[in-house]
């Protein structure tokens, strides 16, 4: 399994792109980030104890690198990127009858602080345990767990304010 990159990409690709969407304004940019992060991971995957956590670390590192280079290019582009990020294409797919609810959830997710959102993405859609999240984000395990709790609490608060469709 460790030597089959397609298996890795099939299993983690969608969650990785969702993870990268925190820094990328659209799906295409997020896929570019995942592509580079994944290639870097693949070259050095044997150096780590937990390859799954390391995969997310590689993607985040490259995402931040990408973001810095993009910011250097022009502040106008940055502003455009931020607006794209807020009103960009959808993060999730699902049945049409749940479209409204999905939009509400997406909006609530986008409003979370980045530090909480990344933990939530890794836990819910990445399927990582708290120790893995801690390793991937270079934070203590307790911090990862508390950020997750705060994220859920904030989501619940926001969703409570929304009218139930």
């Amino acid at each position, binding site marked *: 399994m460790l030597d089959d990159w397609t298996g890795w*990409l099939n299993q983690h690709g*969608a969650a990785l792109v969702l993870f990268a969407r925190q820094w990328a304004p659209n799906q295409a940019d997020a*896929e570019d980030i995942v592509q580079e992060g994944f290639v870097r991971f693949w070259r050095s995957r044997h150096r780590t104890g937990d390859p799954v956590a390391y995969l997310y670390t590689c993607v985040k590192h490259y995402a931040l690198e990408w973001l810095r280079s993009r910011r250097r290019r022009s502040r106008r582009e940055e502003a455009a990127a931020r607006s794209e990020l807020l009103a960009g294409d959808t993060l999730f797919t*699902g049945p049409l009858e749940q479209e409204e609810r999905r939009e509400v959830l997406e909006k609530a997710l986008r409003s979370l602080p980045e530090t909480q959102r990344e933990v939530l993405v890794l836990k819910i859609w990445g399927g990582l345990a708290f120790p893995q999240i801690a390793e991937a984000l270079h934070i203590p395990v307790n911090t990862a767990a508390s950020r997750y709790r705060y994220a859920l609490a904030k989501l619940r608060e926001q969703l409570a304010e929304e009218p139930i469709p």
Partner: protein
Amino acid sequence: MIESFDALEAELEALRPRDVSPRLHRGVAERLAKRSSLRRRSLAWCAVVAGGIAASVTLAVLIWSGDAQIIRDRTMVADPENASIVAGDDRLPTLLAYEGALADSAGAFEALLDKHARTYSLSTGQDPWANLMMPYAFVPNSTGGQ
């Protein structure tokens, strides 16, 4: 409280992130293929360089050992271990022959000089060095010019 907490998690888990496009798979495949091709190319270059170095070292060793053999051959006459080859033979104008004659007497030395002068005089056209192996890397100019 806990129920609603779990319900929210379940609702979030039910959301499916968008599938990745084939472009991502293609991009990763291209990047990894490019890298392995670069690695193969660099390995081939390493092999070529290593082969070149090995060939150069082998050639240098062969040339060096060949030169050493030539020098050994050319210095054979001057080698004290091989001195017995010419010791006691006064037919040739060698240092050993002159030393032997001088050890006998001054008259013997002069007689030997005269003998060699007669034997290797210019009128005979015989080169007095022709039968000697030269103890030099370069043969002296027989015409005496520079």
